[in-house]
């Protein structure tokens, strides 16, 4: 069964769509949910969303999978997982004993801590990141979650600042973990800003495209114009910092999105092609082939067959 495909992006919209209660403290900018207290019927397949917020799951005890773009993360006990916005994502749960879900927008953090957080939110150039926790760090994370929960329920002054501060703290700790296997070489604070601005523009462009607000994919020329940089300079900064050229970034993102739709939706090939502004189905197929060395149809079939086999076993 494929999850329902939606374009919903706001935290409150997503919650409402799943018929989950929206508390007063669940705003467009921030929400904290104890998944295990919601009484979700298992197994639960969440609809596909296209969030404009970061999702942070702190899993004490649960099982399932999380899909973002082409990536699949296994959800299991003592794990922490974070996903970036502006990418199709859905989740599938078979067991929920104790899971904290924190959703927040970048602007929520920026509001109080306007600088120096770009690096943390880049997730080393990936869409999502996960790692296993030790007993000790699990306790620390759980305590922090509890603190955030208490704060979000309280009516104290400056609670948002404190929540943002605590979230940042978790992010820093994650970053610390990830640091060893990060593939971004960020030379200075300012270049991070450029990279993250570029990524954000690119992702926005895709989201607007899907919502039908844009008509074409932005390339180097449009990106440099938007950021007020010289084309060559932008290309140089991006490829020096990330090891990938602008076109590689865009192509990867595009393929990522297409793959998600192929795997987790019933949209026809033609619809998918139209969504990403390909006028011609043939061109779409050949583009996909050159990028992935596989035909889109074959990928979908392989995935479906693989899933069927799993179900039989």
């Amino acid at each position, binding site marked *: 069964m494929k999850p329902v495909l939606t374009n919903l992006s706001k935290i409150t919209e997503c919650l409402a769509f799943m018929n989950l209660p929206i508390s007063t403290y669940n705003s467009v900018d921030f929400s904290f949910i104890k998944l295990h207290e919601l009484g979700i019927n298992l197994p639960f397949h969440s609809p596909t969303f296209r969030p404009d917020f970061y999702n942070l799951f702190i899993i004490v005890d649960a099982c399932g999978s999380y899909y973002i773009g082409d990536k699949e993360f296994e959800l299991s006990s003592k794990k922490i997982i974070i996903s970036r916005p502006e990418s199709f994502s859905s989740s599938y749960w078979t067991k929920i004993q104790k899971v904290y879900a924190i959703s927040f927008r970048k602007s929520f953090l920026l509001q*109080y801590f306007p600088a*120096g957080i770009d690096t943390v939110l880049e997730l080393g150039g990936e869409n999502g990141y996960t790692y296993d926790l030790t007993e000790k760090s699990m306790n620390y994370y759980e305590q922090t979650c509890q603190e955030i929960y208490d704060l979000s329920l309280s009516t104290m002054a400056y609670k948002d600042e404190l929540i943002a501060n605590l979230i940042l*703290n978790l992010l820093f700790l994650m970053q*610390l973990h990830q640091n060893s296997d990060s593939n971004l070489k960020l030379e200075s604070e300012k270049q991070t800003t450029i990279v993250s601005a570029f990524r954000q523009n690119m992702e926005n462009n895709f989201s607007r495209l899907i919502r039908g607000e844009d008509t074409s994919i932005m390339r180097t020329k449009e990106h440099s114009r938007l950021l007020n940089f010289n084309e060559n300079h932008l290309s140089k900064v991006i490829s020096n910092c990330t090891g990938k050229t602008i076109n590689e970034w865009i192509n990867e993102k595009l393929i990522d999105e297409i793959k998600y739709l192929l795997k987790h939706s019933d949209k026809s090939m033609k619809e998918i092609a139209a969504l990403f502004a390909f006028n011609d189905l043939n061109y779409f197929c050949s583009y996909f082939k050159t990028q992935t060395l596989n035909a889109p149809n074959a990928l979908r079939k392989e995935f479906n067959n693989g899933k069927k086999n799993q179900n039989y076993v």
Partner: protein
Amino acid sequence: MENSNKIKFTDFYDTAKIMGLDLSSVDLDHVDMSYGHLGDAEFSFVNSKVLHPDDQLPFSTPPFFTTFFSVGFVLDAYGKIIVDKLPFNVKPGMLFVNKPGELQQLTWEVMNESYGIIFSENFISKYAGISIYKTFPFLLFERQIPLKTSEVFQQELKKILLLIVDQLLNDSPWKNQICANLLTRFLLKIKQEYWEGYVINNPETKHHDIVNDFFQNLEFHYDQLLKGKVQRTLYMKDYAEMQQLHENYLSSILKAKTGKTGGQLIAEKTLSAAKILIEDPRLSLKEIGYMLGFTYLSYFSIFFKKHTGLSPVNYRKKSLQL
């Protein structure tokens, strides 16, 4: 050993450099909380109990000018602190705050538990992205904050301090960011607890008003300058006019209260602004110089080199390498 600690303590405030040297001699085999101080020139943690063992009390520092913000968190200790010739009693369950450029002398009589955090303005703005003057104005106006409230709250604050120590001990690549984050939480908790109904205490003398206003004007102007909202740099005359004072009068008060001339204070601020701008590779040095009121690049270079020992070009190279 104790003796050397004592020297460290006084030097510690005096110059950042000596402090930096101290660190190399820190013995990592020690257990948690047994350090007198941890950290570097930008951010440090002090455990006064370790620095001042009972047999050396009462202990008095010589009068010195601070170059940092410092927050003293007194749980169980007695003493006295003289700031700008005004004495305050240090008692259990209070917090004292010092801002840079104040003449102070600290005396401990009984010492059971007291901690201190020392940080520069640059540290918190660089790693936590916030401006002290906007987010934590009480650091500028308050000298002491009573922590009369519950034991629980004090323990909560202490827990944050322990986390900071833990971070300082684990030399991780994100140490600075995490420390800034924890420091912000520490200050936020205090703000949350005391801000409600907070009125800026009327400073004891009129002079404080003038000095504080001057610093605020200075901060505000450079904030605007960095954001590109104003182009012009201001001189002592302009700052004096803002407070409807005569230039010479303002200068003499600043000199008496801070030990530095107005020109020096402005130069210091210019320098810290220059450092921030130089780290931004998008701006040319000429542009930076012009933004900060230097008509010729060579003036800017000479000024920068005089104060930092590095030319702007070398400083940029160094900052980009890090």
